[in-house]
């Protein structure tokens, strides 16, 4: 089944570039313009992965991560954060299980990383269900 990637990004030129690559790589894409819209969309249909910007109006990336974390239905979605280079010293405030990707980035490499993130998440999910069965 086609996997749905939610892109949370207020800068249209960035979301457009990434969306174009994701679609070409066979993903379905939904673009939210900020954290508030992202939560609305996610309530409507749960995405398989979330890629969010840090700086956004209304609700920024870190606030969105906190909200996602608090919602049991959304907490386990593999998530990646985009930041301007040098904006975050290390991974300040970003939970350990969230990957950080620095802007400006290669959209090609970002899409590869998203695919890898989904693949490894899938692997973990199946191995944990394997344990449950055993």
């Amino acid at each position: 089944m086609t996997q749905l990637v939610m892109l949370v990004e207020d800068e249209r030129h960035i979301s457009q570039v990434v969306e174009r690559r994701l679609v070409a790589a066979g993903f379905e894409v939904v673009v939210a313009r900020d954290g508030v819209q992202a939560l609305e969309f996610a309530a409507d249909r749960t995405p398989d992965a979330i890629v969010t910007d840090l700086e956004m109006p209304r609700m920024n990336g870190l606030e969105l991560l906190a909200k996602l974390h608090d919602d049991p239905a959304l907490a386990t979605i593999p998530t990646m954060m985009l930041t301007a280079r040098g904006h975050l010293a290390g991974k300040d405030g970003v939970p350990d299980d969230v990957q950080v990707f620095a802007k400006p980035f290669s959209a090609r490499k970002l899409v590869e990383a998203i695919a890898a993130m989904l693949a490894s998440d899938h692997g973990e999910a199946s191995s944990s269900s394997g344990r449950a069965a055993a």
Partner: protein
Amino acid sequence: MSIESQIAAIARPAGVVTADDEHNGALLRAAQHEIDVSGRSGAAIIWDGAALVWYEAASEPGSPRFGIALVSDASIEAVANAAAASCGLAADAIRTQLEGAAAKPWSDTARLTSFFASVVEHVATTTEDSLSFDAATEAVDQAYEMIDLLHGLGSVVGDPTRQQDLVSQAADDIRETLGFGWVLVALDEDRAPGVGLPEPIMFSLAAGIQGERVLECLRARDEFAAWPEAGGVRTWEEDERDLLGTFGVVEPLRVDGTPVGVVIAGGKLPGAPEVSSFDQRMLQSVASYIGPMMRVAELFEAQQRLFFGTVQALTGTVDAKDPYTRGHSERVAHLSCLLAEALGWDANRIERVRLAGMLHDIGKIGVPERVLRKAGRLTDKEFDEIKKHPGIGHKILQGVPGLDDVLPGVLSHHERWDGRGYPQNLAGDDIPLIARVLGLADTFDAMSSNRAYRPGMDRAKVLAEITKCGGSQFDPELAPIFVGLDFSEYDTLVARAATQEAYREAA
């Protein structure tokens, strides 16, 4: 959804004929002819009693093309004749096509014509917008690739220790970003190691592409006979295109303006965009970094050689004064590095230990030769002279920039764990770790070597002595690790020094 189908979806329910290459071709050509005559695209053509609205995408001449025809009730015959007269087609063919249109009063036709003209104009504008938006997105995407590539290169260009694999990474990036089947980097043989290349010719290859065959083909072209002075797009010969693709991009690599190599990319994969100026810019950018990288690497290596040459010359002056310590500094450096490795220190720190080992006895330059060369027991006064060498060495090296981490080793390598060493009577953890490491290596070599006043001790006895002195002379944690080291390379160094000595005596 295509423009044609968008227009058709609006037009057909209104009983309007639409025309494209497949359907109603005669009508299309009639409209096209009118446009060619009027020289306008996206225009409404009004014949007597009928109208044609015509669209042709300006950015892609010839496609997509379509027309729609609006016909008033009384005028099919007139339109067909007018169209036929203007484009030279049979009026019958056009009439047949127009009969598909529902006849309307002319007043409606006029209104509908202007309505559809605005629809077409709108669709045309939107299409142009989305085409230029796509193009802009593509350009932004490419700019990101370029920035990412240059950021990677820029972050290591000045650091020769991090250049390993960088060129091959850049070649992979170019190939994957631009969809080339292969990217080749070729350099003057002696420059390849400077940028971390094991070979002067390096390929980045897409799956299934054989580098040797591409190389053969390029060699046959004399592509390596001389490095190119100028870059650009190459059109390969007909019979080479299986391997090289139709076009390739060539960019010279320069050091101080002189070509010393080349980057060549070719064999675009199916589905990849054809070679463009963006491809050329990417290669130019990479080439503009590799040249300075080679230069930096050369300067760095020359500086390293000069530095270690100077250190060796310095230690050589000590050896010249005291033949019994010949090769001692090198052996202490070696043993200290072995211990540092066993302690799990990183490569950088180990190199600093080596340097400290080379320099630890440099202060003996300031000790009188008659004391250093004296056979037999030293008087207290003479021993006091000897004891000055760590302080003298520290003083000599203090003025040399970048030795801050080496100085404590030089000053304190004769301190003892129990505080009975010299020159500062430091004890335990107060003795810098590097000095404790050097102290073990120094004592081991001193005990093992022949001295003016005694022959060298055998290995077992030396190790037993070191073990015994853990906690008194030596750090109790380091001593057991030291005695467990592998001394085979040390023995080689001793044997080599002995051979050199024999030659020197024979001469």
